């Protein structure tokens, strides 16, 4: 029995300890064969999904060799010349690469953080709307921007924020100096971050709304009976209940740290703000390499994947250490 308790303690699912204890005890009595049967069942269940991944995700991975080649389509991956790390060297020797990397990470981190926080806040606030029907309509409306491409939203944003746009006209009315949102290197990255948050907060809040609904209402009732205030309930019931999904969504967003949103930047930036707004994707696109140079594109993709892998691994470990819960 002591032995069982020990192994259970190591279990990653702390809150399920009772269950494991019960199971372990049961295991002593139930025949082992049932467990074996379950194994086969699980394996059989996963078979179709894994097969699809092998064909459509792993099948094309021979293409990763292109990152180390001077790939020529007519020669194919197996006929093109290997050039070692030349593509990576070329990439890191581009004169603006570090500035561009900084811009990318700055904008991407801003988006990851705010695209998590704002939808959480919105989900909690929306949950407070008690007027029947209103909540439904609002939910539908806030998803709308998500369905529009940046080509369209770009022109809306430009019309709102250029020097004679609606926002600056409003500034004029209240006596503020006008701001060249689209042409100032100080403001532009923030404009990118906030307009992206605006586009996506409704859609991103779906997952958190789903998380809130999965919180046991009994907990709220208990808290109310204990005289908890609204804020206390949010802090001690809602947020902890959502926490696994907050962590999960953050971890899943982390591999995006080197992609700051090509379509958005491409439709909003102009040469005066290249210094602050040029990100990896737009830079490489603009210097005309992605279209022609598949090898370089693959090299950039590979760097992204590796950085993503490291981030996911590390963040998962951190989550495990601090909350006793792994996400994967």
């Amino acid at each position: 029995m002591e032995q069982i308790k020990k192994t259970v303690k190591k279990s990653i699912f702390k809150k399920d300890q009772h269950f494991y204890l019960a199971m372990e005890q049961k295991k002593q009595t139930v025949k082992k064969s049932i467990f074996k049967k379950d194994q086969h069942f699980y394996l059989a269940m996963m078979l179709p999904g894994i097969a699809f991944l092998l064909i459509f995700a792993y099948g094309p991975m021979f293409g990763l060799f292109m990152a180390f080649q001077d790939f020529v389509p007519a020669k194919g991956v197996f006929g093109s010349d290997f050039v070692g790390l030349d593509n990576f060297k070329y990439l890191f020797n581009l004169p603006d690469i570090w500035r561009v990397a900084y811009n990318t990470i700055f904008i991407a981190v801003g988006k990851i953080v705010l695209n998590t926080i704002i939808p959480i806040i919105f989900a909690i606030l929306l949950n407070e709307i008690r007027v029947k029907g209103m909540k439904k309509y609002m939910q539908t409306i806030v998803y709308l921007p998500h369905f529009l491409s940046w080509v369209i939203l770009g022109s809306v944003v430009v019309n709102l924020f250029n020097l004679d746009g609606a926002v600056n006209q409003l500034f004029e009315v209240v006596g503020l100096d006008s701001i060249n949102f689209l042409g100032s290197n100080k403001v532009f990255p923030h404009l990118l971050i906030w307009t992206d948050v605006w586009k996506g907060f409704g859609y991103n809040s779906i997952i958190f709304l789903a998380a809130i609904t999965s919180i046991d209402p009994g907990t709220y009732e208990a808290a109310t009976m204990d005289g908890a205030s609204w804020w206390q309930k949010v802090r001690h019931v809602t947020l902890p209940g959502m926490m696994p999904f907050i962590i999960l969504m953050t971890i899943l967003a982390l591999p995006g740290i080197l992609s700051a949103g090509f379509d958005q930047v491409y439709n909003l930036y102009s040469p005066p703000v290249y210094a602050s707004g040029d990100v990896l994707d737009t830079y490489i696109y603009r210097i005309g390499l992605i279209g022609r140079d598949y090898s370089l594109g693959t090299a950039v993709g590979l760097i992204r994947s590796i950085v993503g892998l490291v981030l996911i691994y590390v963040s998962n470990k951190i989550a495990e250490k601090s909350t006793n819960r792994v996400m994967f």
Partner: protein
Amino acid sequence: MKNLKNKVLLSILALAPFILSACGGEQTEEAATNADGDIIMTVGQQTAPNSKLPEGDSFSDNAYRRLVKEKLGIELESAFEANGEDYDRQVSLAIASGDIPDMMVVSRDDLQELVDNDLVADLTEVYEEFASDQIKEIYGSYDGTTLDAATIDDQLMAIPGTTNDFGPNMVWIRQDWVDQLDIKLDEDGNHAITLDELESTAKAFQERDPEGNGRTQGLAIANWLTSGDHGSSGYTATAITNSFGAYPKVYLQDDNNEVYYGSNTEEMKESLTYLNKLFKEGILDSQFGTRTYDDINAMMVNGELGIVPGPWHISDWGLVQAKTANPDAEFVPYAIENENGDGKVNAVNKSATGGFVVIRKGFEKPEALIEMLNVVFDDVANSKDMENEYPELYEYAQLAVDGSVKPFNIELFPNESEIFDAKEATQAAKGEISIEEISKFVIQNNARKIKDYLDNPSDSDPSDWAVHASRTLAVNDVMGSTREANILNEIKPIVIFQTLDSQQRSGAQVGKLEEEMFIKFVTGEESLNNFDKYVSDWNSQGGTVILDEMQEVVDERE
């Protein structure tokens, strides 16, 4: 678990043959035929977003394909259909999968790759044997440069389309505003104005706001500032820089045959200084740099711009929108006289090529391509009676169906034929010659439109005005007259068709440097004293290597 890993490995290996089979070439084979015994020829079909094709016709079934089938016994079948970048992607995918169509239009770089890997047919003999005299004459008018572009190791590997830049870059000025404000413009009548006239007109437009909307700008320029060819010179300062003797974004040779870059000259520095002055004085739009193309276009349509720089054909696709929105909006084109006061007009004359049509190596009937050229660019183009000989294509012309619907989306015109054609159309419209006698259908069509406009200028269709503006005003008057008056100083830049290795590696990088710095020079964010530093940055970031490689290519030609 080991077992499982093995299975994973096995499945991956099982896929390998599929992938490997993508390589491997074929030899000449018998072409497939359809039920009627026609040869089936697969093509990479370029498309256009709004083709204006009549009901029932499509890119896979249209008048051209029916004509080719009827005349040549060849049934064209699309291997893929796509537009612009998407087409280029399909070409790459076709090449990568080793399964290219029998015929397709590719870029010069794709052509090189196809030739290097022995995938396309040598057309030298079939061109000699089958091309009609008219077709050979068209290519002959370019002194062979166009065919040279498609010739690799002395073999003609593709049929190139033609395009040509010639004559001065222009600025288009609202004549109704000029009249309204009683501004004196081009008093010597040589269709060229001075920079001072340009500046004072811009100032007058801005200050006196003829449209009365309170938003009139003197001059607005897209943020790519200049252009290396006529086609993209709309909304750029190229014409202004030319008047300083600067030729941005092209490579030239000096008296010692040394290659230099047109954007990095002392003259360019002067042009930028001038533009900076205009910006400081507020004549150049204060939002220069962040203004998008669409913004400027909208300003033009709304009557907030009275001066629009653009190529001779901008009236057909750009200014016509302003004319539609406001029938009074009459833009008239002018060249700009040189800043040094020699009374001449600088211009760039550059031949280029459109796409390259290739035939898959092993296709049974490579001459099919040449025969189709003859049909499309000789028989049809020179038909005097389209309406009866080719009724379907006549209908296409009336509907303005997009040219991409042809079996190959290239154009074939004799060198500088636009001037002759415009002259002929203008003369015919004015009744000096008979419209029916004109040998080419396109010119006939233009002449009719110009005539419609001239007969009733105040109440004509905007598209008639557009043709009048581009053919009569821009080509015939400005291009033709400056040439006849011998005040044209035409510069011929270096033409290299393939992308050089150095350009592939650094061309875009130095291009970006130029774009970014020039905007700063104009807005004053960067002092023009740093122009020399920009030039040395340009050189060190790869420019020198490009110039050296280009020098080598040029020297080899001598």
